C-alpha cells in the first residue's frame, strides 16, 4: 500500500533520513520506534507531504506522491501536538474539514461520540486543554474512514480511559483491513496494538520485523526488553 524507496533527507549538515526503504501493507499495524531525534516524525511528515525528501520516492497504491496532494484523501493524520486556530470553534473545525474532504463515504463518528465531542462544540479551540485537543485530533483523523491512519504519539496527552478507547479503535480499524502507522515510545501500548515494528536510529534503518519474531529472536516475553536487546546488537 505504501512503498518508501531510498528516502534521503537532511537539514543542513544533519542527516535526518538516510536511505530509508520500506513496504507497508493493508491490514497491518506498524509501530515506528526509535530514540528521540531518530527521524520518526520526519519520516511520517515525508509520507504526508509536509516535508519534501531530498531524494527517493514514495508510492501510495503504486503511484508516486511527492508534491501531489490528492492521495491524502486516503490518509487520516493525528499529529504529536495538536494546535488549531485559537478563535475557531470546535464545530467550525469539523465543518471546515467536512468542507475540505467533500467525501461521499459515510462518516465514522465512533470516536466523535465516544469522546463526546459535541459537548465541546461551542468552545473555541484555544480554550481546550491539551488532552481535549488530542481527542478532537483523533476524532478528526478517523472521521473520514481513511484507508491509512497515521498517528504520531497518539496517547501522549490522553487520560488512560481515552487511551484505551483509542487503542480499541485502532484494533477495530485494523480488522477492517486498514494500514495503521503509529509512532510511539510506550512499549506496552505497542505490544497491545502493533503487528510489526519499524526501527530507526539516527536516521538509519535498524530493523523492520514482526513483534513475534522479535520476541522469538530475543527470547523475551516483554517487548520493552526484547527491543532493548535488539538495539544493543
Amino acid at each position, binding site marked *: 500500500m505504501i512503498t518508501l524507496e531510498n528516502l534521503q533527507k537532511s*537539514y543542513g549538515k544533519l542527516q535526518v533520513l538516510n536511505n530509508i526503504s520500506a513496504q507497508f501493507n493493508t491490514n497491518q499495524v506498524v509501530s515506528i520506534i526509535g530514540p528521540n531525534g531518530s527521524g520518526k516524525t520526519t519520516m511520517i*511528515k515525508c509520507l*504526508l*507531504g*509536509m*516535508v*519534501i525528501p531530498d531524494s527517493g520516492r514514495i508510492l501510495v497504491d503504486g503511484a508516486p506522491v511527492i*508534491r501531489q*496532494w*490528492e*492521495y*491524502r*484523501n486516503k*490518509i487520516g*493524520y493525528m*499529529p504529536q*501536538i*495538536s*494546535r*488549531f*486556530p*485559537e*478563535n*475557531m470553534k470546535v464545530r*467550525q473545525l469539523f465543518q*471546515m*474539514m467536512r*468542507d*475540505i*474532504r467533500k467525501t461521499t463515504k459515510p462518516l465514522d463518528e465512533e470516536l466523535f461520540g465516544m469522546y463526546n465531542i459535541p459537548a465541546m462544540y461551542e468552545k473555541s479551540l484555544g480554550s481546550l486543554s491539551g488532552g481535549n485537543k488530542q481527542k478532537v485530533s483523533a476524532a478528526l483523523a478517523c472521521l473520514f474512514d481513511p484507508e491509512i491512519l497515521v498517528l504520531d504519539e497518539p496517547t501522549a496527552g490522553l487520560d488512560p480511559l481515552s487511551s484505551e478507547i483509542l487503542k480499541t479503535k485502532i484494533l477495530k480499524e485494523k480488522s477492517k483491513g486498514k494500514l495503521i502507522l503509529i509512532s510511539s515510545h510506550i512499549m506496552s501500548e505497542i505490544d497491545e496494538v502493533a503487528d510489526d515494528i519499524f526501527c530507526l536510529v539516527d536516521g538509519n534503518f535498524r530493523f523492520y520485523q514482526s513483534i513475534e519474531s522479535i520476541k522469538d529472536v530475543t527470547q523475551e516475553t516483554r517487548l520493552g526488553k526484547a527491543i532493548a536487546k535488539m538495539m544493543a546488537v
Partner: protein
Amino acid sequence: MNKIIKYVLYDILRSRTVIGYTAFLFLMSFGLFNLESDPTKAVLSLLNVVLLIVPLISIIFGTIHFYNSTEFIELLVSQPINRRKIFLSEYLGVALSLAMAFVVGVGVPAMIFNPGPTSIYLVTSGVFLSFIFTSLAFLSSVLTRDKAKGIGIALMLWFYFSLLYDGLVMFILFYFADYPLDNITLGLLSLNPIDLGRVLVLLNVDVSALMGYTGALYKSFFGNWTGIALAFGLMLLWTIVPIYIAQRKFVKKDL
C-alpha cells in the same frame, strides 16, 4: 480555496488585534475629520498616518499571524489540499481582513466627511498597501523559521520603505542635482510601494504644484490617466511579486 479563506477570515476577524486596529483607525479618522474644518486637510493628515501605520500593522500582523498559524497550516497540509492553495488562502484571508479593517476604519469616515476622488484614491492606496505589506510579511515569514528573526525582517522592511528609502533617494537627488534626473526619479519611485501610494493621492491633491515640474515625461504622466494607471499597475506588481516568490518558497518548504 474559498472555504479555507472563509475560515481564516473568520478566525482573524474575531481576533482582538484586528478589531483594535479597526477601532483605532476609525477613531483617528473620525477625530481628524471633526477637528479639521477643511476636510481636504483632514484627508492629508490621514494620508500621513495611512502611509506609516497601514504598512507597519500589515507587515507585523501578517508575520505574527503566519508564525502563529504554523500548526493550522500543518493540519491543512496533511489534508488533501494543494499547498499553493493553502498558502494563498492564508494570504488572502489576512490581507482581506486588514483591507476590510482599513475600509471600515478609514474609508467609511472619509467617504462620509469628504466624498470625492481624493478620498477614493486614499482608500485605494490604503487597500493596496495592506495587500502589499501582507505580501511582504508572508515573504519574510517563509524566509526564516525563527519567529523573532521573521518579525525582525518585517520591521526592517517597513523601516526601509517608509523612511530609509526616501531619505536615500532624496540624498542622491540632492547630490546629483546638476544632472537630469527626471526619469530616474520616476523609476526610483516605482521601487517603493509607499511612494506609489503617496503619489496616487498627490496626483489629486497637489496637481497644481506637480504641474510646475519641468520635463515632458512628467507632464504626460500627471496630465492624464497614464500616471494613475501606471501607479496602480506597479502597486499590483508589488502585491503579486513578493507573494509569488513566497509561495514558491512555501511549496518547497518543510513544515
